[in-house]
């Protein structure tokens, strides 16, 4: 053990490649070390460290009372977290996969989201609900849903999703520190994405509710978040050859929504495409496109377009590449932004 500690100390300040999963683990670890009220609970979060190893080592370091393997029951996990929060704890709950969070929906919508309001501020719900979401990892059915629209439609919840290793750390710290419930959507296919990252001097804690311009450009804005960010950045590179100078906005937070950043960008570029992999119909893109249209109508050179997953139950893994919006679909949409009044 001493050798490990010594090595860690030696490389203390050196940035080295870290995965998003490691950054998330680090965020929980730091939060737990700082505040004894922070408790992690969920299925397999203890000895196993979660099926994605995001809670790796927490039970060993903080004990089973702080990082608890619960019975297999999502409503029970979130429902007991409500009671724990009532007693002053800050539970961080792991839902094993997106589609397995559905049994907890009643607790989420009827209690977690409403408790502050129902009690006129007396009972805040400082609960973080971590949900691995989205596809692209070849998961079988029920392992690839993008459920953000459900959460967004529930007042009282914050909904955030990181797309970078830095944000994974910073946003999760902010979520755990928040006195409000935060649905923290973790893009599964980015879990193993790496970045130069110094775990000893981690990135700043990112306030919830701020979008960021990941790439500046002048001819159109791609509005995106989570797993689709890498797609959009790639598309923006590819579009250069066609003469498009694309700006890419990473929302990071779906609720609250950073109108300011999005509007400023679209007013500059005059064109916008919203890109996400969740279903298009009734999906987040509709809300975002409407907000842009309402606020940027006179600045728009073309209708706001959406590139989204098809309106189908998540397809089998061998076909998921046809469902997930990729670079080509984004580029096609960009091409359609060359809007002619009679087209």
């Amino acid at each position, binding site marked *: 053990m001493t050798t490990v500690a010594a090595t860690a100390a030696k490389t203390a300040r050196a940035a080295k490649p870290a995965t998003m999963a490691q950054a998330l683990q680090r965020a929980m670890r730091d939060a737990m070390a700082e505040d004894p009220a922070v408790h992690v609970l969920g299925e397999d979060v203890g000895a196993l460290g979660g099926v994605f190893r995001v809670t790796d080592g927490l039970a060993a370091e903080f004990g089973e009372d702080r990082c608890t393997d619960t019975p297999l029951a999502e409503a029970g996990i979130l*429902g007991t977290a409500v009671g*724990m929060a009532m007693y002053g704890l800050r539970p961080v709950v792991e839902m094993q996969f997106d589609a397995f969070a559905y049994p907890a929906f009643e607790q989420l919508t009827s209690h977690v989201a409403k408790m502050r309001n129902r009690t006129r*501020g007396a009972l805040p719900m400082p609960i973080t609900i971590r949900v691995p979401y989205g596809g692209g990892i070849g998961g079988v059915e029920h392992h690839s849903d993008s459920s953000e629209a459900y959460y967004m439609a529930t007042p009282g919840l914050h909904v955030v999703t990181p797309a970078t290793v830095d944000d994974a750390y910073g946003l999760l710290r902010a979520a755990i520190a928040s006195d409000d419930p935060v649905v923290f959507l973790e893009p599964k296919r980015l879990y193993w994405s790496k970045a130069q990252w110094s775990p000893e001097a981690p990135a700043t804690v990112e306030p919830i509710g701020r979008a960021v311009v990941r790439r500046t450009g002048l001819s159109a804005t791609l509005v995106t978040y989570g797993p689709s960010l890498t797609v959009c950045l790639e598309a923006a590179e590819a579009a250069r050859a066609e003469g498009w100078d694309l700006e890419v906005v990473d929302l990071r937070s779906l609720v609250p929504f950073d109108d300011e950043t999005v509007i400023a960008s679209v007013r500059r570029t005059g064109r916008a495409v919203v890109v996400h992999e969740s279903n298009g119909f009734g999906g987040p893109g509709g809300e975002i496109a409407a907000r842009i249209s309402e606020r940027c109508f006179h600045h728009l050179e073309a209708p706001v377009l959406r590139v989204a997953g098809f309106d189908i139950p998540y397809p089998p893994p061998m076909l998921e590449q046809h469902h997930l919006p990729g670079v080509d679909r984004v580029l096609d949409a960009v091409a359609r932004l060359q809007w002619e009044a009679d087209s």
Partner: protein
Amino acid sequence: MKKSSTTVQEPPGAVVHRSTPPPAWQPRTDPAPLLPDREPYRVLGTEAVADADPELLLRLYAELVRGRRFNAQATALTKQGRLAVYPSSTGQEACEVAAALVLQEQDWLFPSYRDTLAVVARGLDPVQALTLLRGDWHTGYDPREHRIAPLSTPLATQLPHAVGLAHAARLKGDDVVALALVGDGGTSEGDFHEALNFAAVWNAPVVFLVQNNGFAISVPLAKQTAAPSLAHKAVGYGMPGRLVDGNDAPAVHAVLAEAVRRARSGGGPTLIEAVTYRIEAHTNADDATRYRGDAEVEAWRAHDPVRLLEHELTERGMLDEGGIRRAAEDADAMAARLRDRMNADPELEPMDIFAHIYAEQTSQLHEQAVQLRAELDASAEPADDARGQGEAR
């Protein structure tokens, strides 16, 4: 089929097994001590009454009388339009009162929508307890101040909260027991199952009291469950199940007290089924004649919780005509105060609908609040004044 009279398989004859199953196949708990008795526990009219604390008996009586009166008054308030709805607990007062009195100050109560009486008997201002039913804000009190969770409208969802809170308190080393109330219908919900399972696995200091009042709105217990009793469900989770006569106030109190003691001393959770009856309809808006007959109701009226205790106390010379009258007068005075206070219109501030959604208002909500403020200001202006002046300004 050799025997048609039974569906239970005959045990196989003596077979020499080559191996015994590994430990996972061994029973983890001896079910025998967890099983409820066949008959509900009773105190009134039995020898057990001699052991009951006289002071407690008189206190229970006073609270029962007040509770009965409260139910009548609240129902009357629905007729005057002062309450949007009231689910009466007439007939169930013994459960409500015992639940409130068994707890110590630091303990927590997790009520369902029918449990206004328990909340009031615990000491909450009745007007605060009635905010939800009045159509005012959901929870008219600070749950932490009174250690009373909000009255839960979605069935059984408060049960996992009780478990989580009790668990958290125990982790902190605090001497806190959570008592959660649920109806017979609520025991069919998944949250009931999950809460009991978590409580037993975590050995949480929590007590579950099912008020089996015979009906879930119109659906009788027989259509709700096929279990021998609701108390039997406890065994499957590994906690004791107890059956009690829910109209026998000292019996409910005794069984609850035993369970609370066990929880407090680290003995884990208990499931208690109190067998009682809902004398009134589900709420004032329900028509009970569509699903049950008068005879059944009358039979239960003969087993009334207030009369049962009153009879016992008078028999034992602990209560006389004067005492009965004083209890009734006290209850009347309480009802009169309640009526007066409920007859004043609550002051509601429309802009409050944007308060307490989040710790900090989002810009989206801020915009909507500005819109409502403008609408309110516009409607506050005198009608003829407002007309045509909009453009002028």
